[in-house]
């Protein structure tokens, strides 16, 4: 039965024209993570690799492709946890980095804290040598379109409700 990896790309409503990309993205991430496990790698490396792949895939609401906040900006959250030691690391409301999951892992590995947030997380990222990326590099046309549609007073209530799923 071992090893095994299971991936999700988010709950909610996936428009028909994006469903193939979503399936392809989670399958690709699963293959990459499984390759690590099959090669004798550990489960933490596998789950982080899977999530990095999806953060780098603009199809998903994480990293590049994240939904926008009310100001039209990107603020991201991430968490990792190690089942052997119950060690964990998280970041919240972090900006201008490509892979929040790597920063969360650094919080776990390099600090005694469970979660760093906002500017504190950004300072920690700089201290760890994590490169900053421009905000625009994380924003897709699709994310901008959804943001603009949901700013409207007459926004589609169904789509708006589905948008309430992180």
């Amino acid at each position, binding site marked *: 039965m071992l090893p*095994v990896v299971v991936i*999700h790309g988010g709950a909610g409503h996936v428009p028909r024209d994006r469903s193939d990309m979503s399936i392809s993205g989670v399958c690709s991430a699963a293959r990459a993570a499984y390759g690590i496990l099959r090669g004798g790698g550990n489960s*933490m490396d596998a789950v982080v690799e899977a999530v990095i792949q999806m953060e780098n895939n603009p199809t998903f609401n994480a990293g590049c492709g994240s939904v926008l906040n009310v100001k039209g900006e990107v603020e991201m959250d991430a*968490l990792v946890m190690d089942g052997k030691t119950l060690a964990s690391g998280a970041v919240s409301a972090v900006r201008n980095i490509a892979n929040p999951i790597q920063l969360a892992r650094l919080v776990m590995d390099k600090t005694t804290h469970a979660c760093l947030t906002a500017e504190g997380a950004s300072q920690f990222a700089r201290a760890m040598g994590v490169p900053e990326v421009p905000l625009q590099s994380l924003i897709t046309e699709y994310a901008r379109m959804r943001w603009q549609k949901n700013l409207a007073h007459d926004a589609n209530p169904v789509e708006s409700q589905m948008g309430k799923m*992180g």
Partner: protein
Amino acid sequence: TVGAVAVDREGNIACATSTGGLLNKMEGRVGDTPCIGSGSYADNNIGAVSTTGHGEAIMKVTLARLILFHMEQGQSVEAASDLGLAFMKSRVNGLGGVVTVDPQGHWAARFSSLQMAWAAAQKDTLHYGLYTGEHFTQSI
């Protein structure tokens, strides 16, 4: 939101979850994802869960830890996942989805939302789906 859970050859379990959060959220809003027990949880003795969906609802029921509690009580990964999601729907009217594993390598991808893109890899087979009840497989 994206997430992953895994068990390696040594039986060690890990989870990871990452998100851009809620569409048009308030600046500074933090959802379930970075909260231990809500966005995910991993314990070698029980299993691991990564969640996605209505963040505030997930936080109110600490969904990941709730599912692992059901597994501690003897439920299967699938039954525990369904129980957690059903409780979240009935108690706080929240929808979402989870991926779950136990230390033996049993796994589940379950959701109460319209869709959830998911994939699993085990014994050189790739499993995947999007709609409720979908379960496709192919060789890796």
